[in-house]
């Protein structure tokens, strides 16, 4: 399988999961972990049922409801007021029973967004393949796992066969040299990367993030970066496992324990890319040049430093691109040359699989401490999981945030995509720590500016997009 050719981290994980290579190069790829949620699974379970098929490996599968769960009020399926949301959650609960899938109930303290709880519970491990019917499965690549989102037909395929039919992706290396400056975070790093390579730059590739600035990130930061790989077009992101990774995994509920852990670590140490391994594309950024970032448009690549201004379509040569930029400005109600820091906001959302971890809430609380949410601004903090929420409350972060006028909610995907009652109303403008600023993403007619947790808190207390470096 390997030969003597130097291999990348991606090549190694891929090679070790090929069950069979078909004549045209398509591989039957083995999947170690299948994470299931309520939105993209009902049709897959139904497909199994119709074909009389069983779930091949319930013991490699785990299910949780996250997209539809309200962040206030009763946390039971029956307590969900919206009928279609309730049916979707109840359908998941029926399906996991019928097919014998391990399930984390809504009231369990470990419930949360599937991409938060995978790593948190030690379900996501280096060197493994992880899939989920959700594009932000790329998150788990932060641990050095090959993790990618799939559609519902592929969800059914994994349920029935524990494999996928795939061709290997190309290798892309993104190296971020030096260290991030004051006030810049992992979120700013990944927004800067997407701004640089564009939202299609990673199509057909798996991105490996490397370099001093990436190595210096804690696991939460690495997950934020890997999470948004899909926003750069890459199905998966990867960060080579190292001591930071091993320390993070150690002792988590589903992770190997004791001697098994030592055995696993010995294997994980063999995973990083070999010296001289070839990449199809390489991009290098200097972390010192990355400022706190904010998006101005309706794709994540439409991003500028917070000190910047709204760009001018008149300066764009390509006619279609110019029209597209104008369309974005019209939707966002922004004018060319406007200073980003002059843009007033109505709502702040801190949460999601991108930035719903304890480190993110700490960063927001540090800015909020001793300040007040600006008049007329609604600021939501939605922890990514029950365990994150509990930890934050043990640290007193909930009190800091509540005192500053933030709302402290229960875990769910919430306003990242508004499948629960947390939505923007038409025309509302939001500083959001989520991952997508598409038209209508946070609610029909809503306007989204993607930022880091510290920048979101800065916006909340300022009433407008603000440079967090002036507040800390």
């Amino acid at each position, binding site marked *: 399988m390997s030969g003597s050719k130097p291999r990348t981290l991606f090549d190694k994980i891929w090679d070790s999961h090929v069950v069979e290579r078909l004549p045209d190069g398509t591989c039957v790829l083995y999947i170690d972990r299948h994470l299931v949620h309520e939105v993209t699974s*009902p*049709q897959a379970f139904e497909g199994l049922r119709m074909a009389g098929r069983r779930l091949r490996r319930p013991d490699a599968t785990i299910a949780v409801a996250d997209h539809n769960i309200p962040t206030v009020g009763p946390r039971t399926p029956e307590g969900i007021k919206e009928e279609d949301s309730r049916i979707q959650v109840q359908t998941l609960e029926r399906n996991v029973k019928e097919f014998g899938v391990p399930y984390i109930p809504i009231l369990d303290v470990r419930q949360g967004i599937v991409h938060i709880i995978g790593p948190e519970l030690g379900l996501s491990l280096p060197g493994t393949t992880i899939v989920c019917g959700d594009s932000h499965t790329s998150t788990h690549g932060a641990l050095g796992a090959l993790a990618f989102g799939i559609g*519902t037909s592929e969800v059914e395929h994994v349920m029935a066969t524990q494999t996928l039919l795939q061709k290997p992706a190309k290798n892309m290396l993104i190296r971020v040299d030096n260290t991030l400056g004051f006030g810049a975070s992992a979120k700013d790093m990944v927004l800067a990367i997407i701004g640089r390579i564009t*939202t299609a730059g990673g199509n057909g590739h798996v991105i490996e993030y490397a370099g001093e600035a990436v190595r210096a990130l804690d696991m939460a930061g690495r997950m934020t970066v890997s999470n948004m790989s899909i926003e750069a077009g890459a199905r998966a992101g990867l960060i080579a496992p190292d001591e930071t990774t091993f320390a993070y995994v150690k002792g988590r*509920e589903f992770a190997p324990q004791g001697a098994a852990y030592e055995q696993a670590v010995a294997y994980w140490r063999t995973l990083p890319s070999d010296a001289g391994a070839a990449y199809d594309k390489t991009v290098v950024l200097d972390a010192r040049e990355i400022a706190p970032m904010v998006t101005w448009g309706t794709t994540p690549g439409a991003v500028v430093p917070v000190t910047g201004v709204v760009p001018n379509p008149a300066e764009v040569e390509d006619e279609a691109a110019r029209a597209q930029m104008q369309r974005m400005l019209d939707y966002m109600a922004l004018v060319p040359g406007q200073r980003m820091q002059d843009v007033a906001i109505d709502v702040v959302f801190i949460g999601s699989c991108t930035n719903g971890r304890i480190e993110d809430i700490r960063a927001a609380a540090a800015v909020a401490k001793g300040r007040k949410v600006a008049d007329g601004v609604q600021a939501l903090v939605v922890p990514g999981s029950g365990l994150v929420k509990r930890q934050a409350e043990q640290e007193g972060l909930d009190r800091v945030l509540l005192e500053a006028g933030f709302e402290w909610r229960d875990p769910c995907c919430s306003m990242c995509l508004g499948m629960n009652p947390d939505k923007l109303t038409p025309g509302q403008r939001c500083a959001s720590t989520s991952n997508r600023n598409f038209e209508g993403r946070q609610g*029909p007619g809503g306007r989204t500016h993607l930022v880091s947790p510290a920048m979101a808190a800065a916006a909340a207390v300022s009433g407008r997009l603000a440079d967090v470096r002036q507040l800390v």
Partner: protein
Amino acid sequence: MDKFTTLTAVAAPLPLANVDTDKIIPARFLKTIKRSGLGVHLFDTLRFDAAGRERPEFVLNQEPYRKAQVLIAHENFGCGSSREHAPWALLDFGIRCIIAPDFADIFYNNSFKNGILPIRLPRAVCDTLIEDAKLGGNARVTIDLERQVVVRPNGEEIHFEIDPFRKHLLLNGLDDIGQTLQHAASIDGYEAKRRAEQPWMPATTATTAASAG
């Protein structure tokens, strides 16, 4: 899944880049447990205003494009969320083929699983086909998958590339789970080998707290 062999149809021009899957089908319509019936919500915010009235300027609200079976768009079609509701909505509306300079990977995959053929052609060629499509009902385009050509209304043939395995599945309307299960013995063998080599790999059923149901 329906076979895809040849298709002669009206093509709708959609000269937009980065058409994301939230745009194709917004999240509020994902709360279904079925695959069917999503066509009425396809491109919901582009097609309808807040009161639910058709926006006359949107191409799919115009004749003859209400019956379009082909879409021609710009770069990075289908980016964003992995929701297969996007191809389900397109298919339910009647779209069987999308032509664009490139597609987001997950959407590209999802299309094939539903009998929709995504064709990658250079931007300049897409722009030519968009000009053809603007001519309307008398300028139908033909897609011949077997021969891998798009035939313009003027008869000019444009070759496209497609993965042979995907082509085979689509031409014959084959379910790929059935294909994969032909390799069941290899999968068994692989699992046995992995259990021996990596006995440390824990099961998701490993703790009693996470019991089924």
